[in-house]
């Protein structure tokens, strides 16, 4: 089994697996027969990928950063305005509320999704009858798109016609989408619903690499299931859990489609997150400069989370 295949390691150790006697690089260029790394071919193979990500990802992000520093009226780019857009996002009550909501949403989702995925992964890792069936059922939401998830849940919790009978409960009529707190709660639940399969898959893969002997040894030593989990399984899964936490954080933080199609930011802006604001400013209100500033803020948070993640993985490895 190949070792260490996680994104953190690539950055310093991308070099090909140690090949026996590596010719010095200078020779590699000249000699034709004995060389193991044809430089021309290597670049020829890599350049198409670089070209396409440069045009579609790198150039646009630079463009977005530039746009965020300018006044805009519809499609016209006007005067340089420094950090006015950013000042608005970080100092206006609206911007601050959006940042706060984004954190409530991300943290609320993480707090449910990670333990849930860990629990489901350990359930699915047991040798039970019908395991293949349960695996397919439990991982099914992975294939459901955010749009479809929003449609299905909206219909499920519909107070008048939905399956849950929320129109008449002991607490009165419960309309998730009309109440600011419940709307956020529903958004978090649906968000967990679409994202836990991926997290469960990653946890499951990690669980399967833990040798059964270790757990058995702990059992012989008299550790109960809970202690075995806490002292054997969990520490070994730590790197994977970091990966999962970061992947989910980025996914949640950048989430637009689900929010847009489920609540649209309402009611009363209660689910208007930073990511949704980026989309709406640009494509509904056509404040392209401000929209770009929101985007850059998102991007900065992504870099921050990503850097934290690489750091954690590195320190973990040592």
């Amino acid at each position, binding site marked *: 089994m190949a070792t260490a*295949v*996680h*994104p953190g390691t*690539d950055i*310093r150790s*991308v070099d090909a697996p140690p090949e026996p006697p590596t010719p010095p690089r200078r020779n*590699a260029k000249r000699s034709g027969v004995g060389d*193991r*790394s*044809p*430089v021309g*071919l290597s670049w020829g*193979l*890599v350049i*198409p*990928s670089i070209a396409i*990500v440069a045009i*579609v*990802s*790198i*150039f646009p*992000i630079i463009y977005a950063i530039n746009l965020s520093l300018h006044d805009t009226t519809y499609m016209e780019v006007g005067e340089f305005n420094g950090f006015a857009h950013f000042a608005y996002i970080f100092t206006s009550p609206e911007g601050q509320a959006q940042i706060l909501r984004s954190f409530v949403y991300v943290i609320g989702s993480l707090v449910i999704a990670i333990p849930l995925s860990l*629990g*489901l992964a350990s*359930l*699915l890792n*047991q*040798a039970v*009858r019908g395991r293949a069936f349960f695996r397919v059922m*439990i*991982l099914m*939401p992975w*294939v*459901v798109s955010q*749009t*479809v998830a929003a*449609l*299905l849940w909206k*219909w499920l919790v519909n107070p008048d*016609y939905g*399956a849950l009978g929320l129109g008449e409960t002991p607490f009165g009529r419960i309309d998730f989408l009309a109440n600011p707190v419940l709307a956020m709660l529903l958004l978090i639940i649906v968000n967990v619903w679409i994202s836990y399969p991926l997290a469960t*898959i*990653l946890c*499951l*893969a*990690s669980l399967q*690499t833990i040798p*059964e002997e270790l757990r058995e040894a702990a059992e012989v030593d008299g550790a109960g299931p809970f202690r075995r989990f806490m002292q054997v399984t969990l520490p070994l899964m730590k790197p994977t859990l970091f990966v999962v936490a970061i*992947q989910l954080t*980025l996914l949640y933080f*950048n989430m637009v*489609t689900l929010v*847009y*199609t489920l609540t649209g930011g309402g009611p009363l802006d209660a689910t208007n997150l930073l990511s949704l604001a980026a*989309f709406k400013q*640009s494509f509904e209100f056509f404040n*392209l400069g401000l929209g770009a500033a929101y*985007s850059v803020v998102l*991007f900065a948070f*992504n870099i921050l989370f990503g850097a934290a993640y690489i750091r954690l993985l590195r320190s973990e490895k040592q």
Partner: protein
Amino acid sequence: MTELVAGPLPTPTRHKVRRRRGRRTNPLTYVLLVLASLFAILPILWGISTSFKSESATLSDQGWIPADFTLENYRLVLFESQIPLYIGNTLLVAGLTVLATIVVAIFGAYAAARFRFRGKTTSLFLILMTSMIPGIAILVPLYFLAVNLGLYDTYAVMIIIYVAWQIPTVIWMLKGFFESIPDSIEEAGRVDGASHFRVMVQLIFPLAVPGIAAAAVISFVYVWNDFLIAATMISSDEKRLVSVGLYNYLSQYGIVWGQLTAAVVISIIPIVIVFVLMERRIVAGLSAGATKG
């Protein structure tokens, strides 16, 4: 890696047998598994149930099993709506995206896994870091770019963007896959006098088919489920993708839930079939990027 992808359960059978004999599975495990499965498929089941009810029944019959079973919604969606067109568009765009992504990424991944050359670390870092750029952050620049290049409202622009967004993930997955194939195969090929390129295409790529399949399915599902690009880059109805088409159903005045859920069911059937058939491969492919073995 190889183990994970080929037959993803590294636990030797010996253990399973022993466990099954020695220790009964806790009944609680089953209860929890059933509950989790219900949570996973309840919204889908309710959608399926509604899709078989008549228009008036969706508003009166709140049972899980339709009292009056009807296929009318499916007839309307399949023969009198744009949904089949949208599904066809999505199949086309997703298929071409997968093809282009694999063709571009497989070479990059191979070079990254096998060759040493100056600038490799930097270029790989550059490619992988672009997966940190959130799609929403570059939507406006991409829109401008598409309009200025005359690509707005074409399949091509969607495909190009999807390919670029999938390349980092796919390169990463395939690189791991190539690294799990022993070097000795290439050496043997080289000794026989084949060029680097021939060795790569004729000896190594065929061995990587399971990895390629996993990467292909993951990219396919990504395109199938995308909303943002499809919503911002396309304006004409005949080029619309299915996720946007479904959303338009919802935002129209007066939602006809029976038809909408029938459309949803039709739109998720292809992807559910792929998922059920390829579940092990997909799981292996997705976990390749994140596990430490």
